[in-house]
């Protein structure tokens, strides 16, 4: 939406306008069909969520703005924003919102949409972490923190893996981390069956 005009010394002048045809006007409505996001359209833009959010100071758009943009159909901006990935699911906004909007659930829904549409910021390990976590659970029924994290780093930032080797080893030495998988006591098949039969989640398909 921002187009940069030629640069004049230190003065950055940008032309900013949003044309109606660039919007996805149904986006807000689509989001309200997701459990937890149903009250989205009731937002009065009071900003309580943004000020209570411990992460909003790092966000490119405050949670309030995300709600406004979602409702107004700024789909691309919303899904590619850092905001949704900075949300730590602390639920502060959800308990403080005077309109009882479950903002944390909205953030989750937007993360899922972004993964589904493959539009997360490049280099961001969170979606990869989520998927690896998913894969681990599918394999053994339980999450293995060490393995999952190691894999994510390997896939996104191999150097990071090296940097954190030390921490990993110290954890292993204290019996707090293992590369061996924890497994369910019974067969994982039953769990897979359950997961397989869940189809109509809002993202429509399972990633992997």
């Amino acid at each position, binding site marked *: 939406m921002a187009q940069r005009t030629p640069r004049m010394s230190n003065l950055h002048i940008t032309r900013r306008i949003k044309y109606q045809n660039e919007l996805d006007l149904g986006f807000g409505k689509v989001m309200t069909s*997701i*459990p*937890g996001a149903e009250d989205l359209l009731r937002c009065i833009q009071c900003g309580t969520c943004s000020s209570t959010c*411990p*992460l909003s100071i790092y966000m490119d758009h405050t949670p309030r703005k995300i709600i406004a943009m979602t409702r107004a159909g700024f789909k691309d901006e919303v899904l590619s924003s850092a905001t949704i*990935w900075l949300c*730590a*699911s*602390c*639920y*502060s906004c*959800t*308990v403080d919102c005077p309109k009882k909007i*479950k903002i*944390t659930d909205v953030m*989750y*829904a937007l*993360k*899922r949409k972004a*993964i589904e549409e493959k539009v997360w910021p490049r280099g*961001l*390990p*969170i*979606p990869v*972490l*989520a998927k690896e*976590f*998913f894969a681990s*659970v599918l394999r053994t*029924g*339980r*999450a*293995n*923190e060490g393995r999952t*994290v190691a894999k994510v780093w390997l896939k996104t930032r191999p150097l990071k893996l090296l940097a954190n080797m030390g*921490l990993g080893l*110290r*954890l292993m030495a*204290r*019996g*707090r*981390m*293992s590369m061996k998988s*924890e497994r*369910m*006591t*019974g067969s994982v098949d*039953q*769990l897979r*069956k*359950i*997961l*397989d*039969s*869940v189809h*109509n*989640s*809002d*993202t429509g398909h*399972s990633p992997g």
Partner: protein
Amino acid sequence: MKYLYYPGCSLKGSGRSYEESLLASFKKLGVEMHELPDWNCCGATAYMAVDEMKAFALAARNLALAERYGDGEPVTLVAPCNACYLALMKVQKYMAEYDEVGRTISDALASADLSYRGGVRVRQSLDVLLNDVGLDLLAEKINHPLGQWKVACYYGCQAVRPFAPFDDEYNPMSMDHLMRSIGAEPVDWPLKARCCGGTLTGTIPTVGLRLSYIILREAIDRGANVVATACPLCQFNLECYQSQMGREYGEDLDMPIVYYSQLLGQALGIDDRSLGLQRHFVPLTAAAAVG
């Protein structure tokens, strides 16, 4: 008193000492904890961001197993990890509140010959300690009061948000009461339930570390010599990234970060090894001298 116990993945991994100390303490208090057989991952935070329904299905399977275990009797499932606690509570609520969730999950469970009718009460272990065991019984059983500790009780997010059935969401007190009952002194501080940054410490470290550091710094400023947590992720962040925070913010940090159950265990006279204290990076003894 008899409960069904849901450990969750962390309590078998990085949070092992939470499980060790909690089970040891409950045993000493005469409370029976039976691990839910064949439990699976609760589907918490990360999973929720990939496929919500599948996350719900994961959590719901555990509830279904618990209900079947109860065999018609009311069941209480104790989930000490905040993330598990919330994931289990949330699916319970959403199945009842949203037809679509209720239907989809019931169908999914049915495909594996399971069902869930809402008969399980999910509770945090702090809730059980305070409201079932009770401060009176605790007072009776405490034989090693821990007067040397000034504790910053750190509840984290999901024990009290968004659902707060057993404590206040803005100023929770149950751990404070517990700490007082074992002779320690809880410090009054405003960040009891502020976010530690969750997984951001690993994924976006500049942000995550800062959030954890704010908690730690405030605990120090308020005169605490130990931080007690109720969540394996909070514990991990505050402890395992402590040296990194120290480097980042140019400070010498050596604050022991323990589980409330470890302090409780000590006060009950349980030895440090059984409480898993040797698994921690900052030894609990270090700060005692300071305090």
